[in-house]
Structures are given as structure tokens and as C-alpha cells.
């Protein structure tokens, strides 16, 4: 099959970017989306041009590195699928696709389809952990955790930190990302001791990083490759409210 790609090219943050059109020919429907980009890049290198810069690593939908807006939707809009897991069998021969980077104030562009997402790391550094040092912890089975609670915490912990939720949001809000971390840790008995300061610190850092506010449109849940539920945002809001009252 053949596709036409309209790709955002931008040398660096200081240089203006623009769309450039590339043909992608002789593709197999069994290829992954990124393998298709590999083929296009091989061709560009051979012709002496600079290949399209894009992030990827595990190519199994778990590292959260890949970050491409495909036809206006982060990761391309296939239910629970990161761009690296998308396969060409979902497209039609002859389709034209637009490829853009995550666009958000808190994610400055680095090059082409690559942005800087360290704001998400700084949010975790502000309190997205349990303050235990190594060693001296109680036996793992000392504290039973009901299965439904552990499962729910796992649902939230499954977040891969890709930032698609931010990229799709009209306010570029990181609420789903933050809510997932707060919920993961606040749900578990091990995380309860720091429940209040965690939610306050994470939300504060999120605001400082320049992410926008949440108006609960639900677009974040719709594009999340791990299908993190919007209900975690409501959960976090309850934790936040309770913490504010106490503080």
C-alpha cells in the first residue's frame, strides 16, 4: 500500500516549522506505524536529506516515549493504542496522514516531532512517591491490601507518562496524568501517610509548569493508550478538597 505523509518539520525551537509532504510507498499492512516512518527515513537518508526526528524506544506501548499526533489525534485515536502499536492495516491505501508533535506550552519543542516532557518528571519529583528509604521495610505480607483496591491502584499506575492527555486537551491540562499518580499512591495503605501533602504538592507543581486547568471534557481518557479512567480525576478532586480543608 501507499500513503502520503504531511509531516511537521522544525529544526529547533528557535526556527519556525512547517509541514512537508512525503510519499510513503510499498508498505505492508503488517508494518507498524513507526516501521513505516523508518522506511521513509531510510529513503530520506539515502537521498541525502535529514530524516524525520521522532521519539520511540520499546515499540511495545509501554515506555511512553513515542508521541505523535496523527490526523489531529495523539497516537492516532485507536482505542488503547500508542503510536508504536498502531499497524498500517488500520489505514486505507492512498490515505493522506498529518503528523505533528505534542503541542503544549509545558512541552517545548526540541525538533520535528520531538518535545521536552521533563515537566512531567518534575511533577513526580514534587511528591509522586512514598517517602521510604531502602531497607528496613516490613514484610510484604504484613499489611493485606484488598484485591479490588490493589487492582484499582494498578489501573491508575498503568499510566505510561506519554503526555497524550496533555496534547489532546484544549487547555493542555495534565490532570489525568497527575490524578493517575495521586490515585495510585493514595489508594494504597502504603501511600496513605502522605496522602494530603502528595495531592497538594503535585497539583501545585502542575500549575507551576504551565499546564492548563481541567474542564472535564474527557478527551484525555479517549486518547489515553492505557485507558486511564476519567474517574481518577474526580477521585483526586476529593482528595484535594479534603487536604485543603485540613491545611
Amino acid at each position: 500500500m501507499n500513503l502520503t505523509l504531511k509531516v511537521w518539520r522544525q529544526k529547533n525551537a528557535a526556527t519556525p516549522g512547517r509541514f512537508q509532504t512525503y510519499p510513503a510507498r510499498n508498505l505492508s499492512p503488517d508494518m507498524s506505524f513507526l516501521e513505516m516512518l523508518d522506511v521513509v527515513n531510510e529513503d530520506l537518508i539515502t537521498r541525502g536529506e535529514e530524516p524525520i526526528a521522532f521519539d520511540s524506544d520499546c515499540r511495545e506501548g509501554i515506555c511512553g516515549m513515542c508521541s505523535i499526533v496523527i490526523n489531529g489525534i495523539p497516537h492516532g485515536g485507536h482505542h488503547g493504542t500508542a503510536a508504536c502499536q498502531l499497524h498500517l492495516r488500520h489505514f486505507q491505501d492512498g490515505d493522506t496522514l498529518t503528523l505533528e508533535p505534542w503541542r503544549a506550552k509545558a512541552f517545548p519543542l526540541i525538533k520535528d516531532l520531538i518535545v521536552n516532557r521533563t515537566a512531567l518528571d518534575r511533577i513526580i519529583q514534587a511528591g509522586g512517591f512514598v517517602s521510604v528509604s531502602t531497607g528496613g521495610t516490613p514484610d510484604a505480607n504484613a499489611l493485606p491490601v484488598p484485591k479490588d483496591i490493589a487492582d484499582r491502584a494498578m489501573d491508575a499506575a498503568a499510566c505510561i507518562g506519554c503526555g497524550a492527555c496533555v496534547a489532546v486537551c484544549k487547555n493542555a491540562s495534565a490532570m489525568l496524568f497527575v490524578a493517575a499518580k495521586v490515585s495510585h499512591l493514595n489508594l494504597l495503605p502504603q501511600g496513605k501517610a502522605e496522602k494530603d501533602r502528595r495531592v497538594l504538592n503535585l497539583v501545585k507543581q502542575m500549575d507551576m509548569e504551565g499546564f492548563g486547568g481541567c474542564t472535564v471534557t474527557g478527551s484525555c481518557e479517549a486518547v489515553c493508550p492505557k485507558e486511564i479512567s476519567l474517574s481518577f480525576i474526580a477521585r483526586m478532586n476529593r482528595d484535594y478538597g479534603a487536604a485543603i480543608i485540613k491545611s
Partner: protein
Amino acid sequence: MPLNAQIPSGPLAQKWEQYKFDLKLINPANKRKFDLLVVGSGLAGASAAAALAELGYRVKCFCFQDSPRRAHSISAQGGINAAKNYANDGDSVYRLFYDTLKGGDFRAREANVYRLAQVSGAIIDQCVAQGVPFAREYGGLLANRSFGGAQVSRTFYARGQTGQQLLLGAYQALCRQIGLGTVKMFPRTEMLDLVVVDGHAQGIVVRDLVTGQISSHAGDAVVLATGGYSNVFFLSTNAKGCNVTAIWRAYKKGAFFANPCYTQIHPTCIPVSGEHQSKLTLMSESLRNDGRVWVPLNKADRAKPPAAIPETDRDYFLERKYPSYGNLAPRDISSRAAKEACDAGRGVGPGGLGVYLDFADAIQRLGQPIIRDRYGNLFDMYEKITGENASQAPMRIYPAVHYTMGGTWVDYNLMSTLPGLFVIGEANFSDHGANRLGASALMQGLADGYFVLPYTLGHYLATAKRPRPATSRAEFKQAEADTRAFIQRLLTIKGKRTPTSLHRELGRLLWEKCGMARNETGLREALRRIPELRAEFWQNVNVPGESGDLNQSLEYAGRVADFMEFAELLCHDALHRRESCGGHFREEFQTPDGEARRDDQNFAYVAAWEYQGLEKPPVLHKEPLQYEEISMSTRSYA
């Protein structure tokens, strides 16, 4: 001269406790005077960086991804072993130790493996305290499952995302320290050389992958936690960025490289679908708890839909050949059995390079919901890649390169032959011998980082008592100049071939000549071809772009250049080891029924290679494997 592994004296079970007591300590107030460089932020690197910073050291941590949370450890699926005996099925430290040593085909160091088993329980305690959401039973206690090479259930897991959850635990511990200012993190930064001052590893040269800037960092010690080298084969289950660069460049600076030929081929991966393939995807070994592996009994049935092949015409070859372990036979053995079936013309799917992994019985026995709960995300991943639903038709799987047991030689302290250079996690060679058992890499990475290195590194600092060099010293300037020259050389060739095409060619050669089965003729052929291919690389590679910019082709070309050199050492080691053991199967050395024939008389040693320059063969140093507690026996899973 035989290598001294610094194994403490005393009875096996007491070595580590006694040794920890004997180690020299650094007073808490003095720890903050030491700068430690940790390269890598996977399970090993993140846990080490966090644990060292918690103790009070000043740590700098480096990774090439945009965040430490994205290290390749994130993609580990199945689980982590620990001798907790929560299942009450007879597990113990001794049993985990024995299974791991036997799984490694008696080619690992006994004292290290025992220590690994000893600290395994504390890892689970630590992770639970960090909030790792392991799977639980309805009573609220932790759930376990079985992995290959074990007859007990000792594997802890978080759905099919155990690596992700363990790494997030370590990452969060690391983030806590970054927030406290005790760790400075350098993401999108690649180490390109090791700096040795007066025989001690005391610094690194790095490239900022965004600006292209080359700079140096000096430290009181250097820790490499840079993962495995499976990608030398081009196609593997590893993340695209995994590479050998850090440990290869350390090797060229004097750190011996041990057992490079011990590479692991994982039996359950999704088969290659075409030329364009960029990597292979693992289907976790945990699937073999409930999936049954089979091929048609008759060649003629190969192309039939699986449902049309009656029970009597199926060969459940693992259950047939290894009745007591069945589908949970270890990886090396299961992979070879699959290859044997395909070589005999009974493989299924395109090119006959596949075997079935069938869940029909388990679904009938336990019902869809239980199977979904256990493996839901793996079934989804399979469907995304192949477009097929594994609850309706069996999966098709084939072996693929997955893990590398070899790595930098380290002693009991996890220190290499270069004083001050510590190597942890998959990057070292230490605990898995010639074959790693499932769910034990995560265990080893975290054991090294949380519970071993923090002790042994302190001892080194307390005894070496060396001043930290300034990065203005000649050794640093020279290493920086060499790095710049290397990059410039890559950029000026502007030949006709892409780095990918050369890497793919190298990978294919290795897979054919030094893959699942090896023989003298093939290895000699590979050793002839690799230098030719390397020459072709240096004459004809085309690396576009500039050095002062984000340049992914340049990053990649540098890694391929190292693979081109390393591949030779890999084949060299494989040729020298005239026996079959674990993942190293030499066709000349097999029993009449096709099992590996080990040669304990002549090869019960670790092969540690010393670099002599590219044009000269490396020098072999042997670390004899002397077992105090157990005797080497023939591995049997029948």
C-alpha cells in the same frame, strides 16, 4: 593469571552477612563529600542511584531517553522471583539459589547466586513499601505464579506489566532524591567514554543529545547500569535504543568482558512478519503457565487451520520431552525444542517459522474471565500486532534474542577489573551463568542496586581514598578529543549505506552463525565476515546531519559502530568455548538426543577477555568456578 573474584571465606550461607560486617564504612557526614556517577536509570541504575543518595552520597545519573522512567526495564512483563515461600510449596533461599545456578547450567558464580537468593525477599518488601501494586489474592495477600525452570510458585507480578511497576517504584524513589537535591539527573545524555586516571575509573565523557555538546564529569566512582547487548543481533525483544556502547568503551579502557557468547533466545516471541521488521515482541513466559506449546505431528498438516487438527495429530513436544517441567521447561531448552520442530518441517505460519501456544484447555478449565485477568494485556498486544485473537485461535510464537547473560566481568563487590568501575544489572555477567531463568533479571537488577552496591561501593571509597580529579586533567581532555574525532569521522564519510542497513546485515550474520545453534565452521565464517562488514561501515556509511544538534542518525551510527567491533568478541568467545551450555549451543557438542553436552573438565570457568587493540586477538583470563556447596550435575528437566 586466574582472576580473583574476592569471594569471602566462610560457609556459603554466612558469607554475605559476615562480609557486610567486615566492609569498611564511611561516616554519614563524610558521604556527602563523594560524587558518584551512575550511568543508566533502569531497574539497576535507578535503584542504585536512589539508594546511594539516600545514604548521603552526591549522585549524578545519566540516561539517553527523555526520562529515567523510560529505561528498557519498563517493558519487562512477567514477574520477579523471590524466595518468600508465601505459597507454602517448599521454596527457600536454598531452592531459589539452586534453581538459578542449575538454570544457568552451572556456569555462574556460586557465592553471588546465593547472595541474590538471600536478598530476594527484601526486594519484595521494599517494592511493596514503595507502593508497587503487585497482584493480590482476595484475602489481600500477594499472589504468585510459576516461571520456567522452577517447580514452585515464587514469581510476584503486576498484571503483565511487572517491569513497569518495579521501574516506576525505583523511578519514584529516584525522583524523591532528585527533588531533595541529592541526585542530579541528566536525561537525553549519552555516555561515550570512560575516563581512567592512574588506573582508576574516575569520570565519563558524555554527549548532550539535544545540543550535541560534549562534556566530562568526574567522580569518585563510576557505576554502569546500561543494560544488555541483545541488539547486536539487530532483531531482538529489546527496546530500540539498547546498546553495548558504555560497557564496550569501558572494555576498551581496560575492564574485562566476560562470557559474551552467553546470549538468551526466548522461546515465546511473535514471529517476524517481514523485511521491514524493526524489533521483535516478547509474549511473556508467564503465558506458559496456562498455554500449551504444540506443532502438528505430520508435516502435511502444517498449513491446516489449527482447529482442524485433532488432538491425536498434535505434538505437545515440551510435555512429551520434559514431562516433569512440561511447558515450563527453561528458555534455552524450550527454544531449541521449537527450532528442532521447525527444522523438521513441522513449523506453522509464514515460512514455517512458528509453533502454537494454545490456551483452549485453560480457557475451558478456568473460563475466559480468569484468563483475561491473568494475561489480558498480552492478548491485546498480540492482537494489535498480528490482528488475531488468542482466545479464539492459538498464538503463533517463535524464539528470538532476548537477554544477554554475558557482560562486564565483576567481582563479588560488583567491581570490574578497573578499580572504581562498578557494573550492575544486565550489563554485568554476574549471576545467570549460561542461561537466565525467567523473572530473575528484575530480581538481580534490584538486588544489585538496592542491596549490594550500596555496601560494596562504600567499602571501595573507604579503602581507595583517592582525590577526585578535575575535568581539566589531560585524561579528560584526551577522552573528549577522541570522542569528538569519532563523531566527526562518522559524519564525514557520507557513503551510500544507512546505519540500519549495515546493522541489519550484521544482525542476520550473527543470527545465522552465532544464534540458537553454533558450530566451528559458521563461527569462523562470521569472524571472517565481521571485519569486512566493519570496514564497509567505516567506508560507506551515510550519517546525515550535524554534530551540534539533535541527530538520531548519529546516535544510532555510534552504537552500530560499537556493535561492529563487539560482534567479533562475541563470536570469538563462542568459538573458544568448545562445549554446549545453557544458551550457548555448539552443534558439535550434544548428546545423541540433542541435549547440550557440557564439559566441566575443561570449561568450568568464566571467560574474561582483555582488550589488546582491534587488530589483535583479546587475551583470555579465566575465573575458575569452584563450587563449595553443590556439585555440578547434568541438567535434567525430564
